[in-house]
């Protein structure tokens, strides 16, 4: 009888271990850091775009800082402000010393409407230590392609207004400028903050 109990509890124990191990494969880990983004996004990211001051921007100038880069447009009603607000909340979870080491780079995919002034006001509004970048359509397309991102202008049914469907992923670059982590749209500020801390 005692032996039976011992076997039963051993089996239950093994079962629990298996459950935990199998479960860990299915739960979304806080670190989406795989070799995949490194291989996919790192080979050809030499691009030239302009900062809102008119200065030309080079990603290598931000070596030594964590760079959170994403694509958007200032007329975006939902995805871009949500992402910027979320980045702000992630930064709020860090210490002021840590925040100083993080830079947000917002690349406009709407050169027609996003002039430097608009772009500057927009990124400053969210207080995420951001640089807004713009350029010619050809220059922007080159960067979009380098990050394997996408965007598509969608004309409205009424009036001249158009919206843009675009990639919402935020690309985290480590201090050496390598893409290490992809923040997906549904990731929480806590997940973002955790990944940022990892690369500080």
């Amino acid at each position, binding site marked *: 009888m005692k032996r039976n109990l011992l076997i039963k509890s051993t089996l239950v124990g093994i079962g629990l271990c298996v459950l935990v191990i199998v479960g860990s494969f299915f739960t979304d880990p806080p670190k989406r850091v795989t070799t995949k983004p490194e291989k996919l996004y790192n080979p050809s990211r030499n691009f030239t775009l302009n900062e809102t001051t008119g200065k030309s921007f080079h990603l290598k100038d931000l070596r030594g800082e964590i760079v959170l880069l994403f694509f958007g447009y200032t007329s975006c009603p*939902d995805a871009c*402000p949500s992402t910027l607000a979320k980045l702000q909340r992630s930064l709020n979870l860090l210490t002021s010393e840590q925040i100083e080491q993080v830079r947000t780079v917002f690349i406009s995919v709407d050169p027609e409407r996003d002039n430097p002034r608009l772009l500057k006001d*927009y990124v400053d509004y969210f207080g995420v230590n951001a640089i807004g970048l713009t350029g010619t359509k050809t220059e922007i397309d080159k960067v979009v392609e380098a990050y394997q991102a*996408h965007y598509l202008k969608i004309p409205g*049914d*009424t009036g001249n*207004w158009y*919206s843009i469907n675009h990639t919402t992923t935020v690309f985290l670059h480590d201090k050496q400028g390598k893409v290490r982590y992809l923040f997906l749209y*549904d990731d*929480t500020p806590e997940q973002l903050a955790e990944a940022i801390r990892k690369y500080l």
Partner: protein
Amino acid sequence: MKVLYRCFCFFVVICLMFIATAQAQGILVNDAWIRGIPPSARTTAAFMTIQNTGPDEMVLKSAACEIAESVQIHTMEQVGEIMKMKEISELRIPANEQAALAPKGYHIMLIGLLRAIAEGETITLSLIFADGTIVSVDAVVRKWGSMAPMGHQ
């Protein structure tokens, strides 16, 4: 006979009053807010919950706001890593159901703002339904929705 006629008139008036009240109370709007944007930006979105408490389906056809050149009803859809948005011609709200206009879903686009909007300010919107009902909504300008500080807005 006269009494009967009076009773009938009274009954009709009560019925009319009931119908009028039912129509006015058919739509309840809760938690209306407009996303705060920098002063130079000209486009934003309004979010809210529209509850249809009436016995008939209500169809939201359009909306109006006097500080926007154009107001449109939109829906969003996240397809893989891409956010897609499109204008819709109407939003159907079945009887005794509600429609959530929230980030990542339906929203009312305010395009071509005629002036800057400030956080905390209240802006009036009009919702225009297919049956002619017009509902006035006071929306507060906020940086994010009531879900803050959670991750999913």
